[in-house]
């Protein structure tokens, strides 16, 4: 009887854990990404549809408090400087629950953006509704979107480059390579990459 109970419990636990791991994992390359209307650090709402001239977007889920995100701040700013004028602006979204991470609240986001001189919008994922749709799991987590008649198509998911520690030691600039390919109407060679990041705080 005891064994039976144990088996029942184990089956139950297994079923539950199976359910939690098979939940929606978000976008894959080729999917249409949702638009949003999120508050920027300047108090205005920002949507992808506001960018009439854009050819696409570099959507980056990032935050103030993750060491990996911090290590990439200057490179994110450089991406915006380089590619906004070419039609691919950076749109940064802060996905963390700010009750868990007060260092990522709107005031802190404003302060960080000011200190670093961010020229891209830095949006609050209020209610944490957008990041799960994209399937972001960590910061920083990049989605390159290309504007098409069907909508904003996901063209690349992953890391910014292959060396978080040292921008000088980077050998493959994943995001730049992908955008350059899009601008030159060539196929993107590396469409998905992985990197360690800080789990998004719920």
């Amino acid at each position, binding site marked *: 009887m005891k064994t039976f109970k144990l088996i029942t419990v184990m089956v139950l636990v297994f079923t539950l854990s199976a359910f939690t791991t098979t939940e929606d994992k978000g976008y894959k390359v080729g999917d249409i990404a949702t638009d949003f209307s999120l508050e920027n650090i300047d108090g205005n709402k920002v949507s992808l549809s506001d960018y009439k001239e854009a050819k696409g977007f570099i959507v980056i889920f990032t935050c103030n408090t993750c060491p990996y995100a911090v290590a990439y701040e200057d490179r994110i700013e450089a991406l915006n400087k380089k590619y906004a004028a070419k039609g691919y602006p950076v749109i940064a979204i802060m996905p963390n629950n700010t009750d868990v991470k007060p260092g990522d609240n709107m005031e802190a986001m404003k302060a960080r953006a000011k200190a670093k001189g961010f020229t891209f919008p830095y949006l609050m994922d209020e209610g944490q509704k957008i990041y799960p749709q994209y399937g972001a799991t960590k910061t920083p987590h990049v989605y390159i979107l290309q504007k098409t008649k069907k909508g904003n198509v996901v063209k690349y998911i992953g890391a910014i480059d*292959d*060396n978080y520690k040292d921008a000088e030691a980077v050998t493959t600039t994943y995001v730049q390579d992908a955008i350059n390919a899009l601008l030159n109407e060539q196929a993107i060679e590396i469409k998905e990459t992985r*990197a360690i990041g800080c789990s998004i705080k719920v």
Partner: protein
Amino acid sequence: MNRLIALLLFCVLSCGSDKLEVYDYDGLEPLINKNDDKVHVVNFWATWCAPCVKELPYFEAVNEKYKAEGVEVLLVSLDFPNKYDSNLKPFIKENNLKSKVVALDDTNMNRWLPMVDKDWSGAIPATIIYNNEKRQFYEQSFTQEELETELLKFIQQN
């Protein structure tokens, strides 16, 4: 006298178990793919990762509690190398960590993440439990109960 205090202080800071094993992925690989009779729990963490730090005591607890059942915990720190001396080593000492701690320093994450597990998106904390028979990867935080429940699946098999 001052010199003596300075010497003592120096020793508190640097004597004893202050050596940290640092590996690149190829160096770490044999440590997370052992072929023996034990149940291995490998936890990827960092001192700056709040949910990781929160669950560390649970890993310490199972390491102690299930020692007789052949459970061995390995804590793989992903702290940045420039924080080993200022953050990681003091953390290990202050929290008196009993499980083995090693540091992984390998920037080419896109290469080694899928080698750890094909489903790992890269968020931490992340944990592997494995024995000779099977291997399970968890990209999640644990409560102590959840960790023990998972671990028991491996122990009862043995």
